[in-house]
């Protein structure tokens, strides 16, 4: 058991192996993402039964909730990759962490925008300092800080280590921030209608879960693609990347 884990660790630690295996995995992941997302979104946005109190405006949760979930777990993935970077000096973890940052930030942004779209018919304004929206906004700021630090340091390894420290500090802070914001929110305004106020219809739940799974597949696809680009960039002088490029050129 431990041996297999060790072997897997070493295999995935090698950029070349990672590049090869993800190249083979990618089409399947894309197919899975499409198969899950397309029906879930069409059904969810078009045909699922309307909600009792909010009517049709609730439908945005089929995008909003998965985006929120991915935004959070993306940040924690980055922090876990950061621990691997700092403790085991694994090159692949550096690249994965760097790939996650902008994608996680985009999902956070999607979550905020869909929250605003939902807020307009529900609250009558585009923005409310609601606890969840506010902590999502701060999560976006945390992502932006990480991206800024990544961009500011030229040497890739140094950038990876510095952002690893920052993302770990951020991940430790995130629960505290979330808790503080909720506390602040209850202090300043009474609890308003939340996104999932009424007991959820099983039909809605299945649609939501399917869409969630689809978005996670999409996230995986995006992260893998970004990581592969990062591998090519960082390993551009290595022999296997060069031969890959010459093969591609010969093919044309």
């Amino acid at each position, binding site marked *: 058991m431990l041996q297999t884990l060790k072997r897997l660790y070493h295999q995935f630690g090698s950029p070349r192996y990672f590049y090869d295996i993800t190249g083979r995995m990618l089409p399947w992941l894309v197919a899975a993402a499409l198969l899950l997302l397309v029906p879930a979104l069409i059904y969810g946005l078009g045909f699922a039964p309307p909600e009792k109190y909010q009517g049709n405006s609730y439908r945005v949760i089929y995008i909003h909730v998965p985006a929120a979930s991915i935004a959070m777990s993306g940040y924690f993935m980055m922090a876990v990759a950061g621990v691997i970077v700092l403790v085991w000096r694994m090159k692949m973890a550096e690249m994965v962490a760097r790939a996650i940052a902008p994608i996680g930030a985009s999902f956070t942004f999607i979550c905020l925008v869909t929250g605003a779209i939902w807020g307009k018919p529900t609250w009558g304004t585009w923005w409310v300092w609601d606890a969840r929206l506010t902590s999502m906004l701060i999560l976006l700021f945390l992502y932006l800080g990480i991206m*800024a630090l990544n961009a*500011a340091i030229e040497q890739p390894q140094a950038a990876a280590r*510095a952002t690893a420290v920052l993302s770990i*500090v951020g991940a430790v802070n995130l629960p505290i921030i979330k808790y503080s914001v909720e506390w602040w929110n209850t202090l300043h305004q009474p609890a308003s209608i939340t996104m999932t106020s009424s007991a959820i219809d099983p039909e809605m739940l299945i649609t939501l879960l399917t869409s969630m799974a689809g978005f996670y597949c999409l996230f995986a696809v995006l992260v893998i693609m970004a990581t592969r680009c990062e591998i090519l960039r960082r390993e551009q002088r290595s022999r296997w990347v060069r031969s890959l490029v010459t093969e591609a050129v010969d093919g044309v």
Partner: protein
Amino acid sequence: MANSVMSDHSSVEPSLWSGLTAVMKRDLLLAFRQRSDMVNPLFFFVMVIALFPLGVGPEPATLRMLAPGVIWIAALLSTLLSVDSLFRQDFDDGSLELVLLSPQPLFVVALGKVLAHWLITAVPLICVTPVLGIMLFMDGNTLLATLYSLLLGTPILSMISAIGAALTVGLRKGGVLIAVIALPLYVPVLIFGTSAVEAAAMTLPYVGQLAYLGAFLVLALTFAPFAIGAALRISVNTR
């Protein structure tokens, strides 16, 4: 002669406490020699707060309502402003390398530097807060809450921004980057700090908020020095 020092002290283990005090003494001495570093963040703090009524109007009721937020945001920004130089001089003249190579544990040095920085920049700021509070029409009880919350909250701000400073010390464009890194992490301190003051303004008990700040302070004192140390090592490593 080298032998004489060696024989006197060969058994001396670097003790954490003497390391901490040595770092703090040195930084306080340096600040005393270069007093402008000490005074500028204070001037900034006073000016931001003094300009505020010019922006929102002089009505006592408005100012009293906004005062906690204004004082806290000004404290936050002035911490950010001063922290950029915390490690930069040591990085530029090479003393940071000596620190990294010394047998002294890095977190002790980091803790010492941040505490000295807090004494130099935040304590004067807390000292002038009563005057500013009166200018913003705060009453006595509220003022007391402000002082307590600043006393507990500003060391946390120093710790957090020191992480940012340590991460960016090798870069030429430190300043704004530190702000982008550190500001989101300030949120809990800002929330509980201002909320303590607001509670006091409504003559409600504010011990709870202070207890939260105290808990955050303990957390920051425990973990931040290690993060700062790791960040400094990374910054020097890539010089």
